[in-house]
């Protein structure tokens, strides 16, 4: 029995690690070696610049504090939403939840256009205020400001907190808080002293993901923040692509990775302290319809705010795709044009082919990252294990590293490292799936691990005493309980793959255009028809993703996913 369990653990340990070794560490080390020692000799002369000016210290400082501020804002704004989604059941809930995730897949340039339409100098908000207040100049200037960077980071990452914290919260026993209230604690004290500590594992996992995302922010900083702002990622891109200063870029990459690693190490230690096994409850017991007037009001005010923040930009895009055409009024002209190859171009992308490519890559990414993520989580949840498997916590930070690694660096690493059989993957579409999985894996692990660690050991012991094999314990105790969290991870994996553009554009690839690539193709040249078709394709992307999210959330195998 014991041996079989070990075998299983070893296998689940090895596969994710082999994956990381082959597709993360090997390419990374290859490109770093090539950068620092191009002719086999270590040369640090190009690094003088790094220490010679205060510029890079300033960049690191800005990168850190804007990420911290963005994380605080996102968590603060999304927490009330997570509460609602955890405790109440109301009509339209799954659609609203799907809509909050859409921003995650949209290309930055498209989001920037939507923001301009709403918040730009001649956007809806400014023209409205001008009329209202009788001004002759736009009162709000958000163009290229820190405020718009923060706003965009909240816009993109809100869903991370909503989903990860919401799913965890939904299985917390409400009776704990009720007991505290009964004993005389007021609402705020009960939340602070009972619920918040219980939520800590999920909350910190979500905050960590948001932080790393903002820490490595690229498009938002460049396009919305403008060229005055630079994060490490932006600087790595510039040094690599524009100056081909590989040593400097590699040094910045290493700093970025070390920073992520240090953060993860702190987080892992903290996690060990805040995580405790809980009596988790099914959401059938913890969720209910709002009853009193006040509860309904609370729900609708919050949903209203959520929609205002997250869906007005989306609505602006959809609206423009339908109304901008020359015929005036509402028309589907741009959508019809999508289906015509008017120029007989060899690079014409039929919309259905783009949808098929995107969804194909995304499903493969979901499958691979969920399998690997479950394995990794099983290994990292090592309670009751002795020897090596009792010490697997040190592996945890490794799985997060890809998220904190520059896409430019890793992309070039692929070119350098994966060029020989059997790993000659440089021009293979498989490389796209592998790259997407690398980014998606941390999301699956971070979603699943808190739920897995919250399972009370008594449950497993009981199953074991009754004669269940380790696999059966996992299959019939662990999996049903964490299924919700797995679905959350799967939604993120799907989202990441559907929206990913940066890394894909850095990999040399044969023509297999995804939807974001098609959008960028349209926006690459002037002309109203191109603009309109880019908007139409963006709307199509939103539609496909919404359907995808709802389908994944409904996904059930037997009782898995019901908890």
């Amino acid at each position: 029995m014991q041996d079989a369990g070990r075998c299983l653990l070893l296998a689940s340990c090895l596969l994710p690690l082999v994956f990381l070794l082959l597709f993360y560490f090997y390419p990374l080390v290859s490109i770093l070696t090539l950068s620092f020692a191009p002719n086999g000799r270590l040369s640090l002369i190009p690094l003088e610049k790094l220490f010679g000016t205060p510029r890079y210290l300033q960049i690191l400082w800005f990168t850190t504090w804007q990420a911290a501020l963005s994380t605080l804002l996102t968590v603060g704004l999304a927490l009330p939403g997570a509460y609602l989604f955890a405790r109440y059941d109301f009509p339209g809930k799954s659609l609203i939840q799907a809509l909050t995730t859409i921003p995650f897949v949209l290309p930055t340039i498209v989001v920037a256009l939507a923001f301009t339409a709403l918040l730009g100098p001649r956007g809806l908000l400014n023209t409205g205020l001008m009329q209202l207040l009788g001004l002759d100049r736009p009162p709000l200037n958000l163009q290229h400001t820190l405020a718009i960077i923060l706003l965009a980071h909240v816009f993109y990452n809100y869903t991370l907190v909503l989903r990860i914290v919401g799913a965890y919260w939904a299985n917390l026993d409400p009776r704990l808080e009720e007991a505290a209230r009964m004993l005389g604690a007021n609402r705020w004290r009960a939340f602070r002293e009972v619920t918040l500590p219980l939520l800590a594992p999920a909350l910190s996992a979500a905050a960590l993901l948001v932080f790393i995302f903002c820490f490595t922010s690229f498009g938002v900083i460049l396009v919305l923040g403008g060229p005055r702002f630079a994060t490490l990622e932006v600087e790595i891109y510039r040094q690599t692509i524009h100056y081909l200063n590989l040593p400097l870029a590699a040094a910045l990459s290493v700093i970025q990775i070390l920073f992520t690693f240090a953060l993860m190490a702190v987080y892992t230690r903290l996690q060990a302290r805040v995580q405790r096994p809980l009596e988790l409850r099914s959401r059938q017991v913890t969720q209910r319809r709002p009853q009193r007037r006040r509860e309904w009001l609370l729900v609708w005010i919050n949903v209203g705010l959520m929609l205002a923040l997250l869906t007005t930009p989306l609505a602006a895009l959809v609206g423009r795709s339908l109304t901008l055409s020359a015929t005036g009024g509402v028309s589907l002209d741009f959508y019809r044009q999508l289906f015509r190859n008017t120029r007989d171009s060899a690079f014409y992308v039929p919309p259905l082919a783009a949808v098929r490519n995107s969804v194909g890559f995304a499903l493969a990414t979901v499958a691979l990252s969920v399998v690997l993520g479950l394995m990794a989580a099983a290994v990292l949840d090592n309670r009751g294990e002795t020897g090596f498997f009792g010490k697997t916590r040190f592996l945890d930070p490794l799985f997060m590293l890809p998220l904190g690694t520059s896409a430019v660096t890793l992309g070039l690493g692929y070119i350098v490292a994966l060029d020989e059989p059997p790993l000659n993957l440089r021009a293979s579409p498989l490389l796209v799936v592998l790259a997407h999985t690398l980014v998606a894996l941390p999301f699956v692990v971070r979603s699943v691990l808190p739920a897995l660690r919250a399972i009370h050991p008594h449950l497993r012991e009981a199953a074991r005493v009754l004669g269940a094999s380790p696999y059966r314990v996992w299959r019939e105790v662990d999996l049903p309980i964490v299924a919700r969290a797995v679905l959350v991870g799967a939604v993120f994996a799907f989202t990441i793959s559907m929206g990913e553009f940066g890394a894909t554009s850095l990999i040399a690839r044969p023509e297999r255009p995804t939807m974001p690539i098609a959008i960028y193709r349209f926006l690459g040249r002037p002309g109203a028809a191109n603009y309109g078709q880019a908007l139409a394709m963006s709307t199509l992307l939103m539609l496909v993703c919404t359907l995808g999210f709802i389908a994944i959330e409904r996904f059930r195998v037997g009782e898995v996913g019901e908890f």
Partner: protein
Amino acid sequence: MKRVIVFALIGLLLAGCGPGLATPTGSPEPRSVRVMTHDSFDIGEETIAVFENQYYAEVEILEAGDAGVMVNQAILSADNPLADVLYGVDNTLLSRALEADIFEPYESPLLGDIPDHLELDSQHRVLPVDYGDVCLNYDKAWFDEQGLTPPANLEDLVSPEYAGLTVVEDAASSSPGLAFLLATVGHFGETGDYTYLDYWAELVDNGVLVASDWEAAYWGHFTYGSGGEGDRPIVVSYASSPPVEVYFAEEPFEEAPTGVVVGAGSCFRQVEFVAILKGAQNRELAQAWVDFMLGTTFQEDIPLNMFMFPANQNAALAEAFARFAIVPEHPAEVDYVAIEANREAWVEAWTEVVLR
């Protein structure tokens, strides 16, 4: 127990081979030519078919990011090249590629049809395919409404009546942004009483806006491109943008909605090259493809697909292009060797003046 591991492995395999994702394995087709290019590459379906039929060969196009990313990829994979032919290296990146020694010389018989001034490399390691100019564009209707004359040259932009009207791209992250900076370097020079940096300092005082890239500038800030939401009627774009606006317009135009500033020295000419990569698997077919790209069939298909001018003098221009396209007579001159040598210093100095 074993079964579980087997299932896990099968799961992994299945995951890897999802729908439509089977990897091409084994050796490539006997006759195929791999062309590595940037993601703005575009050409007619029939044009490629002409080559494929003529040579019984397959053309595999490998898109490798923007021109900068592509050149870097080619340099890093020099020992084991990703493709046989590289298309899309331009004069701003040329000397980096030549220094890395990744191309094989090829003196195509069609070079005779290409004007000498486009042939930058005397050793024929790279062959010019097309060219185009990065120039200021303006919104005609906006200037009509305001009763303002559009600018005629770079000098105009710093005068008070054009205050707060211009958007340019970041020279450190965008290729038209860099090209425009090069135009100012070529026009105003680096030494003397009034250098390109003095010009930029004046532009900043006159309220120039710097966007991250062409997309953000054109669609987000340019009054015409953004459909009235942006507030900048002057933008750094291409001399070919007006014909593209006409070609992709929603309703037929009698004249282009945007104009180009073509004053002497106000544009920067980009020349795009094709080259055979060292270690090409099928040199003969690679040469045939290069010849094909320089021949009139391909050349005549360039304008309406990539909106650049064909390098071959014998190529006829499509009507939609010929009618609205503009070729500035005196673009600014900057030597390509100087570009690679000074790019970083110029961009750093520019950043210092414009952004800090």
